[in-house]
């Protein structure tokens, strides 16, 4: 039995989600920040974490976006295969939601229409849309605007199978170390392991939308997440890159089967303003 969904419904949700996520971090991220402010060893690091806590309060109270880089809108749509969209195309509806959200929400328009000619589209469209078809008759929408201070520090490595898990660890640590202060630490590290060149990149991005503190359900992947987080926090980069024991809040890894000849690894770095919001319609 097909369920009809009018695309205007998508537009409205995406508009609201773009606005909400830029003014208020999800509870998991706020909790991670509060915990770090208690545990950070560097006095300057603690001072910066307190500034970030105050920043969240001001953003919510005074309706000022948490960060001026309100991001390029990344949207994941998990579409139930029994859903039939009516009233227009999904892509247009999503972009219309982004357009309205960024206009009505006083959010920065950070998108240029052609990457070489670089003329601002002035409405923050298009977004980057990842669609997948899943069982059921629901649509799960995740909006995750991505700032480019941290996006620019993300990396893809095409390892050899012989590099193994140790190779994966050194990729993640080198990406975090190279990012240093540029990515606005404390960061969240999304990692995609396996698949193909593009598959691992999408997994790394999607991993950032996982609730902070929740681990992979695969035991050896969970162990790897915990080990990497501990190692990253021993790098000393600290809040704002000014030294300290809080460099990352979480390492979230997604995996996928891969080719006998390869071991692709993508490391997508997100700043402490790791914005993600999900709704199901």
């Amino acid at each position, binding site marked *: 039995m097909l369920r009809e969904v009018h695309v205007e419904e998508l537009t409205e949700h995406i508009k609201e989600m773009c606005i909400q996520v830029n003014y208020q971090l999800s509870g998991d991220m706020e909790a991670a920040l509060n915990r770090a402010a208690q545990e950070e060893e560097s006095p*300057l690091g603690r001072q910066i974490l307190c500034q970030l806590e105050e920043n969240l309060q001001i953003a919510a109270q005074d309706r000022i976006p*948490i960060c001026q*880089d309100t991001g390029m809108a990344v949207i994941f749509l998990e579409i139930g295969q029994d859903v039939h969209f009516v009233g227009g195309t999904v892509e247009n509806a999503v972009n219309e939601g982004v357009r309205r959200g960024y206009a009505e929400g*006083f959010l920065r*328009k950070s998108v240029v229409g052609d990457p070489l000619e670089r003329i601002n589209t002035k409405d923050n469209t298009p977004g980057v849309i990842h669609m997948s078809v899943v069982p059921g008759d629901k649509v799960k929408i995740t909006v995750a605007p991505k700032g480019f201070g941290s996006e620019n520090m993300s990396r893809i490595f095409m390892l050899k199978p012989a590099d193994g898990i140790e190779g994966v660890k050194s990729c993640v640590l080198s990406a975090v170390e190279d990012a240093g202060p540029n990515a606005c630490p404390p960061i969240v590290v999304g990692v995609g392991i396996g698949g193909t060149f593009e598959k691992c990149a999408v997994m790394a991005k999607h991993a950032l939308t996982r609730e902070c503190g929740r681990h992979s359900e695969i035991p050896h992947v969970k162990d790897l997440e915990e080990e990497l987080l501990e190692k990253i926090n021993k790098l*000393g980069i600290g809040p*704002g890159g000014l030294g300290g024991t809080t460099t990352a809040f979480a390492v979230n890894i997604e995996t996928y089967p891969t080719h006998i000849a390869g071991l692709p690894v993508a490391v997508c770095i997100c700043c402490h303003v790791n914005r993600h919001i999900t709704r199901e319609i």
Partner: protein
Amino acid sequence: MDKKIHAPLDAGQIRELRAGDYVYISGIIYSARDAAHKRMQEALDKGEPLPIDLNNNIIYYLGPSPAREGRPIGSAGPTTASRMDKYTPRLLDLGLKGMIGKGKRTKEVQEAIVRNKAVYFAAVGGAGALLSKRILSSEVIAYEDLGTEAIRRLEVENFPVVVVIDSEGNNLYETAAEKYRRI
């Protein structure tokens, strides 16, 4: 050490700043980021004057979000400074004395900072709402067509920054991480 300084800067103030100092800036600063730097470079290449006087001034690497009614500016945190590295030594040689951004700089920028007795500050990235409240007024003074990337004259009060590279070339990013590194 916490210090208060006034912008535009003078040589005496800059000399006393040390990497690691927590500094509150009050006075007038200018925003400019990628596209504005590119245009300034093109103007200089053509022998045209710049839209701002660089002498003793501070450039803030900023592209704010739109202001709500009754506010001077929207969210207003720093952007990554390294994207301006290509343009920066020339501006320092022309009299620019301070930069506010976040992240590492090239060796060429660091050398130009020392050569010109200037200073590089970091503001806390991602604290755009808090920093917005320290900006009292904002006026677009050049390249209005660039939108968020236009050059703005900003009046700031107790704008919080940390000295990362001081006029002697001490670099906080190089020393701070070492202190807490355990790997």
